[in-house]
């Protein structure tokens, strides 16, 4: 379970997150929507400690992410993350990309790591690209590679930061399908997304962020068909 309490994040004078309270239960799929600059990415970065926080707390299964004595490298093994900009390791094949972390972080044997890599690449539909370098993969394939790479660490939570925003329109579907597959398999997911269809169909809950505040959170039907906040209404009117 992810428990966020009164989370505040500043970049210098800029108050980016203004007291976020949010719980994400095991098995839940939460979509986070909101306009550009509202702090959605920053929220994910605070959850896996890529960014420090100024106030409040984030707990993963009871462990305080930002406590001094927390081993973040260990903690991050529970949290897979996929970024907007695909960032496969260009000097490694698809297989090596996925096998590296299980091998050097988890200490698996080479054979075991390669077996995991092959399994996960097949899982995301890249079974025929095992030996390819990222330069020979499309954007959509690279995003699925990034998903496989994260899954190979057997995370308990997956964080997606606009995983489809940088893709050509015709590649968006294949990545969303992979994310859907994960959701069906019961993965706990927080998906920052601009794909309203995905948010509506796949999520258990949708959170709307506005200028560093979580304006509204609830089941997709509520957010999309009877939003309470004026800001939410306006935002949805614009993206439709």
């Amino acid at each position: 379970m992810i428990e966020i309490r009164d989370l505040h994040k500043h970049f210098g004078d800029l108050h980016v997150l203004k007291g976020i309270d949010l719980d994400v239960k095991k098995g839940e799929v939460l979509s986070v929507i909101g306009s550009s600059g509202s702090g959605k990415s920053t929220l994910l970065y605070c959850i896996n400690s890529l960014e420090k926080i100024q106030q409040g707390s984030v707990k993963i299964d009871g462990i305080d992410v930002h406590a001094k004595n927390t081993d973040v490298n260990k903690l991050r093994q529970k949290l897979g993350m996929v970024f907007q900009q695909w960032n496969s390791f260009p000097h490694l094949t698809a297989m090596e990309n996925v096998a590296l972390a299980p091998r050097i972080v988890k200490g698996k044997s080479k054979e075991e790591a390669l077996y995991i890599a092959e399994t996960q690449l097949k899982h995301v539909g890249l079974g025929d690209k095992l030996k390819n370098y990222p330069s020979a993969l499309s954007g959509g394939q690279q995003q699925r590679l990034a998903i496989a790479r994260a899954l190979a660490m057997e995370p308990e939570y997956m964080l997606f930061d606009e995983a489809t925003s940088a893709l050509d329109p015709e590649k968006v579907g294949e990545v969303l399908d992979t994310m859907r597959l994960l959701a069906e398999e019961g993965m706990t997911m927080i998906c920052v997304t601009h794909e309203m269809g995905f948010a509506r169909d796949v999520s258990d809950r949708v959170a709307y962020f506005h200028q560093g505040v979580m304006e509204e959170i609830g089941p997709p039907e509520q957010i999309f068909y009877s939003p309470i906040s004026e800001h939410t209404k306006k935002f949805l009117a614009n993206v439709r």
Partner: protein
Amino acid sequence: MFEYNFHWRPVLKSLPDLLQAGLLTLEVAVLSMVIGITIGLCLALMRMKLEGPLKWFAVSWIEVARNTPVLFQLFFFGFGLGAAGVNLPPYVIIVAGLSFNCAGYLAENFRGGFQAVPDTQINAARCLGMNGWQTYTRIIIPQVFRIVYHPITNQMVWAVLMSSLGMMIGFRELSGETQFFASRTFRIFEYFAVTAVVYYVIVKLILGSSRLLSARLFRY
């Protein structure tokens, strides 16, 4: 009219000695490059990651190495330190001078290489639970190495050519040896012509093996 008769026989007779000296040239260049790469990497990291005296030490090294004649840098290790009572043998002077110079140039190549690897690579690695060391050695350095590979090859060629300054400090690498024989036999043109060919062959060998190696190393 002045007439010059070419005499190649003495040169050919001392060819084995010249080739031996060519090996010494190669040895000095390789050693200087190994030291230069190690120090250059440190200087680049000091310049990028540190503040204060260590950063300025690195910046000064790089500035002096890149913006003053190599010959002066050699003279510093030779006559400069000599004046201060530290007398180094010619072999050490040439290796120290070339290493100093190569480190300065390579540091800037490394810095460019590090800057060319996007920060998102670091985030991706950290998100997989890799620590700082693993991120550097497994993700960043291999990519930097590819970027600086050709600059390193060029610097290696330069190291070979610059080592000819050895003859200015009485070191008998390829040029020093040539000078030695040339002045004894007065066949100056013949000796330096043959030596030029030897340099040419050494450089071509370096470039050729570098190309072969790069095809094996970089498949992406």
